[in-house]
């Protein structure tokens, strides 16, 4: 297998640190850029993300035109804090309210397409502890400077928080290495060149993102890569080393649930494309066991794996953006 893509389409954020140059390029191309932060109870990190991005990429360098928070119904102070630091905050349920309501990161990202105004949309998780504006400009850079690139995905060194105020220098990425990479190796070896397909930070042109479906939950990162790869090929994708991202460590059971959703998304896609055949439908529940008073008790969680259709199929969206299908 050729590693041409890895060599040609892999960047480091410092390749794009000339922010003045990026702003010039953006203005020359007459583009608008939206930054979307999907949230659910992120009061500890949301203010910092907004302030750093606003200071560096709006006040000092007008690279980003709007910061939009799409909230899934936080019960902590996330919404008030985000508003007080100047972000445009929306309750996901109030966007396209006539549609059936779902809760999940993918749902928020999909609805952000309707709410935001940008030609480029940058998605950044709201739980990044060591936020830096490189997380945004590093992803915007390849989209502005390379005409063939339509979607940019982050990868990092991933220290994880352990115990009280301590970090472990390397780690994380277990679902990538145990689930995604084996799947890609089996079905699409070319995609294994994507170092961290599950990273939560990516940016893309609206006219790409609005043409792909969005799973409402964990599967959204995998599906984006598969769909963009299928429709436009690997060359429109770039990956950018954003250095270090410190995030919450998740327990094995949470990773199991994430893997279930990703596997389901993957298998359903391959079934749809005819690559695999299933005699039965997949089940909707992940069943995990807990040891309670010397007895194993099942803990079943339903993960339906619902997907939103491409936004371009939503009439209100087409009307708002004056798109004629």
């Amino acid at each position, binding site marked *: 297998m050729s590693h041409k893509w890895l060599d040609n389409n892999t960047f480091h954020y410092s390749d794009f640190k000339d922010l003045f140059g990026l702003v010039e390029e953006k203005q020359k191309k007459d583009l608008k850029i939206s930054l979307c932060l999907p949230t659910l109870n992120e009061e500890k990190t949301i203010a910092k993300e907004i302030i750093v991005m606003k200071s560096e990429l709006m006040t000092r360098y007008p690279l980003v035109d709007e910061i939009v928070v799409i909230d899934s119904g936080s019960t902590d102070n996330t919404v008030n804090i985000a508003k007080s630091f100047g972000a445009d905050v929306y309750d996901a349920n109030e966007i396209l309210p006539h549609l059936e309501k779902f809760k999940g990161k993918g749902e928020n990202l999909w609805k952000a397409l309707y709410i935001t105004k940008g030609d480029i949309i940058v998605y950044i998780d709201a739980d990044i502890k060591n936020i830096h504006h490189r997380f945004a400009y590093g992803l915007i850079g390849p989209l502005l400077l390379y005409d063939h690139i339509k979607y940019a995905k982050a990868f990092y060194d991933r220290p994880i928080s352990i115990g009280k105020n301590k970090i472990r220098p390397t780690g994380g990425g277990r679902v990538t290495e145990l689930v995604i990479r084996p799947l890609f190796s089996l079905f699409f070896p070319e995609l294994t060149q994507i170092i961290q397909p599950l990273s939560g930070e990516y940016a893309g042109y609206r006219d790409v993102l609005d043409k792909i479906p969005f799973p409402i939950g964990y599967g959204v990162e995998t599906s984006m890569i598969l769909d963009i790869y299928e429709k436009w090929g690997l060359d429109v994708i770039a990956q950018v080393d954003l250095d270090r991202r*410190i995030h919450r460590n998740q327990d094995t059971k949470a990773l199991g649930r994430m893997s279930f959703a990703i596997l389901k998304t993957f298998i359903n896609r391959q079934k749809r494309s005819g690559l695999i055949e299933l005699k039965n439908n997949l089940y909707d529940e992940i069943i995990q066991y807990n040891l309670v008073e010397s007895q194993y008790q099942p803990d079943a969680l339903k993960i339906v794996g619902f997907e939103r259709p491409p936004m371009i199929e939503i009439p209100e969206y087409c009307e708002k953006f004056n798109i004629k299908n």
Partner: protein
Amino acid sequence: MDSFLDSLPALVDDIKAIKDIIITNIVLIGQTPAPTFKEKRRGIVFMERMAEFGVDEVTTDGYRNPIGIIRGTSSEKPPIFVVAHLDTFFEKDIVHNYTIKENTITGPGILDNSLGVGVLLSLPIIFQKLDLAFESDIVLAGTIQSIGKGNLRGVRHLLKTWPTPIRGGICIEGVELGRLNYFSDGMIRGEVACSISEEKGIMHKYTPNAILILNEVINGLMKLSLPQRPRSKVVIGKISGGANHGKIAYDATLGFEIRSDSYKMVKSIYNDIRDIVDGIAHENEVGLTIKTISNLRAARLKFNHPLVKSSAAVLETLGIKPISKSTESAQSIFLSRRIPAVTLGITYGENYYTSKATMEIEPMFKGIAQILGVLKAIDSGVCDEP
């Protein structure tokens, strides 16, 4: 100067208008760990930010203190220094991620002194936004190796090797807003360490216990007669030792600080403590040593020095009540070199030396305005009288 003083309260809102940039500087600096002697990464961030803000010259001195210089309008006037120490108490493996809430920022080292450094970094853009110019060059320095065993080496070197006279200095500390330090006590920080080899412990009829040996040292310190004049005191600030509850301690250390108006008295008390330590070591046949960690000579500006009077006026104009105490900061190095200098605090805070150190955001804008006021005062000549 009087007209600037009058305009100072109105500047608070102008400074607040760029709070995103100021807070970002505090966060980006604070999230880069900088334990004493390991400040290199923070120094790089400091210089990168200074360069981004269009400072005329960004460099390091021979000791690697990062420096930004904003050129003044007059080549005749000596430079004014604004300094904040780069190093913090926290090691690199501690999570240095800050949490911002509506009116607070929390994180390790924020009060001592990431806040001070973040504000220092913000001064160039504040000058630009407020259209402030100075006759003197303004030298903005993040000094390394200040805390503990660092013994203010960074600022000592910076001032010692600076090639021109220096007009005056402002030292920025995170807290507390209202502090107006213009004098420093003489000070020696020392450490008494007791170490008993396990082999020697077996040879003793009664195995000595390092903690109990230090207890004898403490008893000796308690019996010291300290004079009322010059005002003097000994603080026992740190003690550690032993391995577990049921085992005799083979190692223990005691940290102390001697302070006095007179450095001669500080040295005299230190010699008394050394005699106590030598005596106990001899009587108990144990390894008991004393060493100096850091020291400062007493130095002061007079209360009626124009810089002190002007600084007090600046604080009062902003509705801040000035509070004067001795400080063991970089200011003492300025004063010992006969450079007039004061130390100012930026805001209020709590949990100073813990990983949950928290600063208040709102008072910070007055804290920054006071720096501008004092800078203008120095630039107008309050430090120029011999």
